[in-house]
């Protein structure tokens, strides 16, 4: 049997040693004529950190940590050829992560349906079709407490049940893979790493709701995800797992890929439907909800990628098992994309109820820059910031809402002291202003006005009254916007304003940016005592803002300076001051 070895250098601070390690290992395997029987894969993330070079050997399921080149001969002869476990190399890391959604990522070959089937793939669909009782599936999902992983957290069984109860011959199910939230990539990883489980989940959704057609709506920016899902669909057709008489039953289900085209609003379900229909992605008022009137006016269920990846494990292991993980109201696990100013950036899947502190510090390893972690942002442009004081909050839909953010799709962006909260609010708001479809006035006009005010504040033209205006406009947008995009767009502004009002006030009253991000609120100057008069800064300055000569020294003209920071970077004796 072919062995598979996943390798990663988990010491993120050092240069990546995995490549050299792989080369040495490959050579030694070749010497033993084992290279045909072993597949080496350099993994992107294994859920283990700071354990040096880590190897996961499959199918033996051995996890070796702190492996060095001198250990290679032993590993090759004893473990790979001899099948023996080397106890001194076994990696005993705290099992904080719990992989349900990511169970197959990096384990199953995403381009081989046989491999997926060998890992219990399609067992859930077989069970469902054999029992032929959609109500039973719904009951199981109800027990499991699974809620939508796209962000809103609507109970999945309820959504399916609504569509199921509508009497209509044609219904649809859609997998929402329009992961537009900047800084989040769990859906991409699942689509690329385990496409079959999403297809299986969608097929089961089709069976339960009575839909005979499913769509995968995937961002055009994810070409590999599109390719893999398409390949997986083709293979499923070839194996009789899509099309007519699936697994010998009377159930028929077809699946097709539709591409997004770069519009954030299309993650909203009514806009997504419009987009699949080939129209502008405009949202429409609800009700009627898609479960009664969706795609082409027919009952439609839309589920997020991660939600669908949870379906098969629930069916195979029971809803009770799933409900045993997590908190009172939020069951199961959640995948977070932990990125930004964090040492171990990557995907983590943790049980609901894990604290933010555990995710950021224990798994993420803290800021890694030596600077203090200031906050995390969850929920992307619809979410909010959570300051470090609240890091003990256990993650869950309600818990995060209580502290002014949302679970969202699972982006978790870590920010440190060098990040300015006004700048962050501006970043997200600009995103929403760009992405607003323009249909309703509160979002179209409100967003632009908010952005204008924030720009004034970061340009040093802010007034105290602006802070109240920010709150007022935000409130109006929340209440009056047509869809989720407009209703949640002010969240990043409100939450930064609530938790970091001091920072806003410093911008407004003292005209100062504590994090030195807002270009108009700090300046570069030359410390004459340190300056060696080399003139390097003059030659590098793109805006000709530095004048002077070797005798008299140099000065920076604040009016001309574009705050690019090139002088600071090129100055050898560190004579440029930012303040």
């Amino acid at each position, binding site marked *: 049997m072919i062995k598979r070895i996943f390798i990663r250098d988990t010491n993120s601070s050092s240069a990546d040693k995995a490549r050299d390690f792989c080369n040495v290992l490959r050579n030694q395997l070749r010497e033993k004529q084992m290279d045909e029987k072993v597949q080496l894969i350099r993994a*992107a*993330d294994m859920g283990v950190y700071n354990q040096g070079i880590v190897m996961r050997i499959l199918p033996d399921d051995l996890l070796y940590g702190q492996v060095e080149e001198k250990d290679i001969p032993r590993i090759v002869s004893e473990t790979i050829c001899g099948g023996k476990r080397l106890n001194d190399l076994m990696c005993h890391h705290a099992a904080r992560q719990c992989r349900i959604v990511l169970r197959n990522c990096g384990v199953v070959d995403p381009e081989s349906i046989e491999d997926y089937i060998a890992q219990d793939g399609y067992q859930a669909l077989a069970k469902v079709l054999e029992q032929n009782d959609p109500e039973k599936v719904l009951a199981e999902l109800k027990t499991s407490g699974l809620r939508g992983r796209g962000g809103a957290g609507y109970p999945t069984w309820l959504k399916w049940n609504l569509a199921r109860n509508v009497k209509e011959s044609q219904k649809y199910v859609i997998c929402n893979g329009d*992961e*537009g*939230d*900047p*800084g*989040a*990539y769990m859906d*991409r990883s699942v689509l690329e790493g385990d496409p079959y489980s999403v297809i299986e989940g969608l097929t089961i959704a089709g069976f339960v709701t009575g839909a005979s057609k499913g769509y995968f709506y995937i961002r*055009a*920016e*994810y*070409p590999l995800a599109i390719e893999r899902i398409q390949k997986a669909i083709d293979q499923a057709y070839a194996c009789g797992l899509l099309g007519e008489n699936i697994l010998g039953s009377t159930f028929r289900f077809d699946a097709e890929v*539709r*591409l*997004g*085209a*770069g*519009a*954030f609003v299309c993650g909203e379900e009514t806009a997504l439907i419009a*987009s*699949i*229909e*080939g*129209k*502008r*992605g405009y949202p429409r008022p609800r009700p009627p909800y898609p479960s009664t009137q969706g795609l*082409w006016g027919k009952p439609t269920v839309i589920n997020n990628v991660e939600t669908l990846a949870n379906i098969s494990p629930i069916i195979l292991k029971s809803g009770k098992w799933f409900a045993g993980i997590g908190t009172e109201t939020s069951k199961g696990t959640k995948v977070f*994309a932990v*990125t*930004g*100013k964090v040492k171990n*950036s*990557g995907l983590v899947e943790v049980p609901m109820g894990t604290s933010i502190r555990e995710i950021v510090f224990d798994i993420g390893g803290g800021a890694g820059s030596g600077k203090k972690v200031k906050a995390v*942002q969850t929920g*992307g442009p619809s979410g909010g910031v959570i300051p470090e004081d609240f890091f003990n909050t256990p993650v869950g839909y309600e818990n995060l809402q209580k502290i002014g953010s949302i679970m969202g799709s699972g*982006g978790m*962006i870590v*920010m440190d002291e060098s*990040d300015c909260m006004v700048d962050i609010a501006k*970043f*997200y708001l600009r*995103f929403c202003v760009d992405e607003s*479809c323009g249909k309703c006035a509160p979002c179209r006009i409100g967003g632009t006005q908010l952005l204008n005010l924030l720009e004034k504040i970061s340009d040093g033209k802010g007034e105290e009254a602006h802070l109240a205006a920010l709150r007022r406009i935000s409130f109006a947008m929340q209440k009056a916007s047509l869809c989720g995009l407009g209703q949640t767009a002010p969240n990043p502004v409100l939450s930064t304003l609530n938790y970091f009002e001091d920072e806003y006030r410093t911008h407004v009253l003292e005209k100062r940016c504590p994090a030195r991000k807002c270009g108009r609120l700090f300046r570069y100057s030359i410390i004459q005592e340190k300056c060696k008069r080399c003139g390097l800064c003059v030659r590098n300055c*793109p805006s000709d803002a530095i004048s002077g000569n070797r005798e008299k020294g140099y000065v920076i003209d604040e009016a001309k300076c574009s705050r*690019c*920071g090139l002088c600071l*970077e090129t100055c050898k004796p560190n004579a440029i001051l930012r303040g």
Partner: protein
Amino acid sequence: MDAAQLEKDVSEIAGDWKNKEGNLIMILHRIQSKYGYVPREVSLEISKHLDIPLARIYEVITFYNYFKLEPPGKCTISVCMGTACYLKGAPTLLNELERVLGITEGQTTKDGMFRVEVVRCLGCCGLAPVLTVDGKIYQGVKKNEIGEIISKYAAEENGGNGGHKEKP
């Protein structure tokens, strides 16, 4: 483009999508991957072929960021402005690109060589900051590496060995 050829191309592109519901966006994707953008004469032909008004086609093209109405540069440099990239210095990279190439985001250099774009999120936040040149990903890019990346592509283009491969 000669009319007969255009008609043939368009019916090839539309292909089996012609009779499917909600096909317009998928057909536009195919056009853009063939030409690199959506040329007006192709839109006109599609309008005839599918029997939908040109205004409907433009309505959709202009709504979605992904569709372009102008030809791209020979090399398209896309700077990721996802949150992680933003925090890790993507704005600095964009400034540097704009400075070195003398164009702003969304423009193409006069010689038609480089086009600079900002993209929302490429979904490789762990590698931030990220930019892509013709789809090839550069991770953890630093400001002083920009010049190097650009000159590499410029040299390849001037190298005479056919330069960059045609877009599929």
